[in-house]
């Protein structure tokens, strides 16, 4: 194997190996653990940088390892995988810093960071998967490595939440597996190829292909929290804040959405999916999820729960973009993969900060918190405005392209109302929070002040990550036209998908 074949492996290994070593560290070796985490994260960032440059210049990076005759584990870097890998890598680094601050002096840190690294490795492997078989492997690994993170606190609620998560995701994983095996029997190894590979199958297979599509989408929809498969997501809120952040922004939910994008574009092919009449169904499922999630979010007083339902809604923009035929809709969906990630991770970081610093868990406790924690609240505000779709934050770009794409595809009649209703609902559940935080008078005392105001409003390791990600969310919107911006990269992907 040469360098081109090793690079994808190294990208996965740069978090996997530190993770495995961390499991065997003594609980007290705090500095070694931190060093391993950070070295792994920075190394991964460097490797991904090389990957971006190479893929942009149409370099082929592929590693292949035969597990059984006809079943190859393939890691392959294309434009879409690079987008997701980059998102995971950047956000892993930020989240690691945050988690080190968040879990200071908490028990079981070796176990936590071990599984945390495994979780990221699984996500990156899933992003780099070169065929559906490999995707399924990492998809299940992701389920396994997330379970201990959700159950981490060990309270009955945590174990219960983790169990519900597992029941949903393993059930979904089984459907995904059956669909994949079936497809494998019909069409042989299903490599991800831009434009899809199933269009050339004879017409007598089409009924079977429809059933398989349904199996795959349900299997993926569980992680992507498509209604009615979203039941686990609010339960998983019991996890520590860094886990929720990672879960909602990159790892689990995004893995489902990414899988839907892969299946539609690189397995079936978007035109063939449309030809089978499956695209509209996917779009309707996404639309229902978008509206339903937003309505549910409106009624949550618990901040993390409100954010969780907001995720249910926001992630389905990706599926919606996938269901809109034509490159502009595609751009809108794919770019939201990144934008939603940056914005949502900011929201979860800041929610964690409120809880860790002042003991605030509910929206109704947030009166005047902007004065006590201005930087955190500013980051929260930027991300919330972005979610609503206020320019120039990143979320605006996504919604703009989705709307434009729907117009172009002649689907505006139902996509536009969905976008408008959901934006109004977004505003309805975020603006009151902002109003409370900035303009209401604070109560006599905070629920439980753990960290007193000193040089910063909270500890530095907790403060910097949301500030950085909020800045990124703003930059992704402001500099959307700059080279290598998420939007430019999504445009590149769409062009290659449609062969433009």
């Amino acid at each position, binding site marked *: 194997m040469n360098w081109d074949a090793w690079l994808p492996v190294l990208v996965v290994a740069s978090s996997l190996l530190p993770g495995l070593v961390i*499991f*065997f*560290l*003594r*609980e*007290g070796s705090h500095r070694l653990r931190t060093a391993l985490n950070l070295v792994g994260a920075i190394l991964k960032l460097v490797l991904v940088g090389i990957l971006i440059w190479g893929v942009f210049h149409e370099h082929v990076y592929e590693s292949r*390892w*035969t*597990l*059984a*005759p*006809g*079943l190859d*584990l393939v890691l392959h870097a294309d434009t879409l995988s690079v987008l997701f890998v980059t998102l995971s890598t950047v956000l892993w680094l930020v989240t690691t810093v945050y988690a080190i601050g968040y879990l200071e002096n908490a*028990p*079981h840190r*070796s*176990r936590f960071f071990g599984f945390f690294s495994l979780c990221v490795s699984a996500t990156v492997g899933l992003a780099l998967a070169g065929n559906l078989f490999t995707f*399924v*492997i990492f998809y*299940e*690994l992701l*389920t*396994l490595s997330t*379970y*201990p993170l959700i*159950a*981490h*606190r*060990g*309270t009955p609620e*945590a*174990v219960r939440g*983790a*169990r519900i998560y*597992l029941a949903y995701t*393993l*059930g979904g*994983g*089984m459907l995904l*597996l*059956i669909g994949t*095996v*079936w497809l*494998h*029997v019909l069409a042989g190894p299903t490599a991800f190829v831009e434009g899809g590979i199933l269009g050339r199958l004879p017409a007598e297979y089409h009924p079977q292909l429809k059933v398989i599509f349904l199996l795959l989408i349900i299997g993926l929809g569980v992680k992507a929290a498509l209604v009615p498969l979203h039941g686990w997501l609010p339960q998983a809120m019991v996890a520590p804040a860094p886990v929720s952040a990672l879960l909602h922004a990159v790892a689990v939910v995004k893995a489902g959405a990414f899988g839907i994008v892969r299946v539609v574009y690189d397995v079936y092919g978007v035109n063939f999916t449309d030809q089978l009449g499956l695209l509209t169904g996917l779009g309707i499922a996404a639309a229902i999820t978008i509206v339903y999630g937003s309505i549910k979010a409106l009624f949550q007083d618990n901040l993390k729960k409100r954010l969780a339902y907001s995720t249910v809604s926001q992630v389905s923009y990706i599926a919606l973009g996938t269901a809109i035929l034509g490159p502009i809709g595609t751009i809108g969906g794919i770019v939201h993969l990144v934008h939603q990630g940056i914005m949502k991770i900011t929201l979860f970081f800041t929610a964690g900060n409120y809880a860790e610093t002042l003991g605030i868990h509910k929206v109704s406790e947030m009166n005047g918190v902007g004065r006590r924690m201005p930087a955190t609240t500013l980051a929260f505000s930027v991300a919330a405005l972005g979610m609503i779709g206020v320019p120039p934050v990143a979320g605006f770009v996504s919604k703009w392209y989705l709307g434009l794409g729907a117009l172009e595809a002649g689907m505006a009649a139902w996509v536009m109302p969905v976008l408008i209703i959901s934006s109004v609902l977004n505003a309805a559940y975020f603006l009151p929070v902002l109003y409370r935080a900035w303009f209401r008078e604070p109560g006599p005392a905070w629920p439980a002040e753990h960290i007193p105001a000193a040089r910063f409003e909270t500890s530095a390791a907790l403060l910097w990550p949301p500030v950085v990600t909020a800045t990124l969310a703003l930059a992704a919107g402001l500099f959307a036209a700059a080279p290598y911006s998420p939007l430019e990269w999504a445009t590149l992907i769409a062009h290659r998908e449609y062969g433009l």
Partner: protein
Amino acid sequence: MTDAMIGLVALPLTGAVATLLLPRSATVVAIGAGLATTIAAALLLFGVANQGALHYEMGGWSTGLGITLRADGLSALLLMMTSLVALAASVYASAYFSAASERARFWPLWLLLWTSLNALFLSGDLFNLYVTLELLGLSAVALATLGGKRAAAEAALRYLLVGLLGSMLFLAGVSLIYAGYGTLDLATLPRVVEPGPIAWTALAMMTTGLLLKTALFPLHFWLPPAHASAPAPVSAVLSALVVKAAFYLVLRLWLDVFANVVTPVAANLLGLLGACAVLWGSWRALQAERLKLLAAWSTVAQLGYLFLFFPLLLALPPGPTRDLAAGGLVMLALTHGFAKAGLFLAIGVIQQRCGHDTIRDLDGTAQHLPATTFAIALAGVALIGLPPSGAFLGKWQLLAGAVETGQWLWLVVTATGSLLAAAYIFRVLGHAFGHQPYPNQPVTVAREEWPALLLTAMAALVLGLGGAPVWKLLEIGT
């Protein structure tokens, strides 16, 4: 390479005699013999991979009257698994039995069991198979009684009677075969056996006897008490290897010796029993109150999966697709061997360190043994059939075969069984999370915890990621 074949029988046998004569240094002798046997198994595996199937006529007697040893890809793989599992269990046993008197009784029987397993996988004719099967059964029963308690003796007695009945049925079938075809040689029989009353009766009797020994539903009743009341290292080999030996014979009979006698209807019957085993075994494992019973019921279920392959193998025409399915079957059997042995060893650690194995009361206690808990998790990954375990590849082939031949029932059974397995495994793992402070060291008792960890890692990682040679090796037939 024939030396390796002789070594596989002679080394553990010599060890058994030596531990009997030298009870004081029995542990050292036994581990030494185990290591040597494992090296012989590895040499044989490489030999078969490079030179093809091997056979050796002991003492120069020709086939028929003499004893012929044979090794092809399948037997070499099973011998390798046997050695690795038995070696790891030996290391664990050296820490498990604290009293010298216990060790003195344990080691000779243990090495005798190992000898009979190896001899069985190397046997080239049906009568030697009967003898080794019987030897295996007797040493297994004797080991199972070492649990000491009344329940163990009762379960062992039932185990013995079932085993005897099984072997007698097998022997009756063997006699019929000799009456009908005048040979018992495994290599000759496939060419001379033809469909007819003799072949059908013989096959029915031998299969029933073996199903009794391999505990296929509804003949599984004896397994849970016997496996759950034996000492942990013994339970490990009983569940991982001893039932596999009988299964290996079923496989040989159905796919080689009686290949042109068996019918799809008969195979469907086996598949149906397998399906019942999967569902009932998994369900009972989910209800189990003790870890050991859970593991034992899970063995009933896991053996069921192996039988689901029979209707697929009979429906598929000879060729690459069928070979893929057959490889999946062996992969599943190998993975289960490693995983279940590791699981029983891990349960042994918990039982000895915590004083019980009641699942409900595991909270907190399991946390003090992170490495052992992790071993249980790895075993769980393999038992559920999640990637990257070897069982994932096995189940993939099972599902693919079911789709290929349009036998959707087996697909539904496999999916349901896997989800039930997930339920019973995570029911245990849920207890491992809690508030108690983590011990300072991840691995607390090395000699007890490492064997389980290595065995389960073998099942959940090595076989899944490096298992491709299994299919290559299986192409090497006798």
